[in-house]
């Protein structure tokens, strides 16, 4: 079938909350493709990634029509099966390097731990190999060091190296560069791109940073308040956003291409509407329908780079009504 990741109608509801954190999300990732999920805090992007990997635990109810990663059914697998799927088929890189390593154990020990004992030696060698590949010097010494001996950038590289063990087919990276200095970030991004190409990996990238996303991801999903509001080729969306939220998001970000010292675009009102489109209360072009009817993801004429979907009742006219400020 070719799709490394296939999600249909994923829904995540945290216990004790009123609204679901993620409502009916569907998307897939093909082989060697990089997809980014973009959104602000509360959009549900990290919840989506955690739910896909079945890492949320008993705090939430997850339901989906289909959840297949690297050919394995993640929806109905047992915890034991899930652990081995995650170990063998998927590599994960998380946000804050200092928080995601056990500071009381050597990095080599932590990384090979999920594998079977008789494989440990083999995996150590593989890890040293990958550490060198990702640019960590003296890898054979570093492997026995503790996390505090390495800088944030190096720890993140080490995490990427660890994620590659066992030749996974899918790499899931949640804000892999946001805790890092910008020069280290630039380096890590080009490293990721090289690795993806070399190993024919697919990538699911979660980020709030449009600059990073534009450099790595070929396709993009924009999330707002638990739903997908726009999806399509990255370049196309960033140059021609159709959903009012995306348009406004891009307008709020200062950039070298824009005039300085002028007020950025903002909406004063906050929050989410209870009925209809979640963005309606903040949307500058919302009409009555928007407040009562939830817009479905519908195809929007594409630019030839791939299919574009937008969840907005007024998506045909939105780009005429709101100017993206750049």
């Amino acid at each position, binding site marked *: 079938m070719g799709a490394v990741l296939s999600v249909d109608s994923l829904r995540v509801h945290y216990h004790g909350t009123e609204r679901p954190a993620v409502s009916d999300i569907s998307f897939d990732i093909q082989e060697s493709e990089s997809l980014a999920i973009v959104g*602000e*805090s509360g959009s549900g992007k990290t919840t989506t990634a955690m739910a896909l990997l079945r890492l949320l635990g008993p705090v939430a109810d997850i339901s989906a029509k289909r959840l297949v990663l690297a050919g394995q059914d993640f929806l109905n697998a047992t915890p034991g099966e899930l652990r081995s799927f995650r170990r063998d088929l998927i590599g994960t890189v998380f946000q804050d390097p200092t928080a995601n390593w056990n500071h009381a154990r050597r990095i080599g020990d932590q990384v090979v731990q999920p594998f079977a004992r008789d494989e440990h030696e083999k995996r150590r060698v593989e890890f040293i190999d990958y550490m060198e590949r990702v*640019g960590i*010097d003296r890898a054979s010494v570093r492997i026995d060091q503790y996390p505090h001996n390495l*800088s*944030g950038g190096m720890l993140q590289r080490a995490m990427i190296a660890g994620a590659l063990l066992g030749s996974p087919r899918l790499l899931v990276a949640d804000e892999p560069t946001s805790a890092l*200095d*910008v*020069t*280290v*970030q*630039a*380096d890590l991004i080009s490293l990721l791109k090289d690795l993806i190409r070399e190993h024919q990996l697919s990538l699911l990238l979660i980020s*709030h940073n449009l*600059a990073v996303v*534009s*450099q790595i991801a070929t396709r993009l999903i924009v999330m707002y308040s638990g739903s997908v509001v726009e999806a399509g080729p990255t370049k196309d969306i960033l140059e021609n956003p159709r959903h009012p939220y995306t348009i*406004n*998001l891009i307008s*709020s*970000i*200062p*950039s*070298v*291409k*824009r005039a*300085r*010292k*002028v*007020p*950025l*675009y*903002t*909406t*004063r009102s*906050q929050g989410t509407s209870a009925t209809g489109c979640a963005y309606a209360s903040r949307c500058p072009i919302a009409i009555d329908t928007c407040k009562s009817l939830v817009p479905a993801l519908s195809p929007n004429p594409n630019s030839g780079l791939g299919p574009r979907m937008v969840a907005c009742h007024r998506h045909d006219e939105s780009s005429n009504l709101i100017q993206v400020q750049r």
Partner: protein
Amino acid sequence: MSALLEIKNLNKSFSLKIGEVKACRNVNLQIHAGEVVGLVGESGSGKSTVANIILGLESIDSGTIEFDGRDLNELLIHDQRAFRRQVQPVFQQPLLALNSRRTIGWSLQEPLIVHGIGDKHSRKERALELLDQVGLSKEHFDRLPRQMSGGQLQRVNIARALAVNPKLLICDEAVSALDVSVQAQIINLFLEVQQKLGVALLFISHDLEVVRHISDRIAVMYAGTICEVAATDEIFASPIHPYTRALLAASSLDQSNQSRALDLTKFRKEEIPNHGCPFAPRCSFARELCNEAILIQETIATGREISCARAHEIRE
């Protein structure tokens, strides 16, 4: 025009377990009344140390700080308090910067009480006025910090900083912990503060694009030294210092400047040399003299300063 705040040859070191760390090496910086000076640098650059020193939270090893032409070291206690009043902070974490057990109204009045301004009644009036100025409403007066969002709390912090009518705000990564859309609101608020109230800002950040948007002039720091200072447009159009170039290349959205980027894979922080130019080990323009020369921050054109032994040659 003489500067509102002038830092001359500031030096500050910290003794840490790994050894002595020079957080500030011969830092020279000027902030004029009503202007926004952006201070950019990565982690370990020393920019927060500069902020802490100006705010009186750290001592100086050597150098002088002059405010309104007067040397701070020579101020009497009474005048030192008056100086504090002119310089107020806005920190990175909106929630943690406020006492969680006090209402917003109380926190807004703290600087007023401390600096002996007004009486009980007028202080409350002033607090309400401040809430209005930053776009919050009267009902926020009695709220506790945990009942408000990050964006709202940062407005409170800005209001508190403005309470005593300071001439300078020190904003240390003031928008870095905020979501993009909220960040835009606070950036706009800072712009308003400068434009409507004429308050100067020292805006410290690692985010080049935010700094560019808000600053009139930018100073770039690396490992405790000021690499380059110039008007914002100039720094972006024609950066001179190799580190400035590398930083711009690494942050830009388009890839066309990749050729200016550095290969930083093998770099270790402990390798920053204690003499000569701290950037020399990573600099593609480095020569022998860069390791030996005593680095000075020199003015090479109006409003343009640079700390580079080879500045004149590098300039195309």
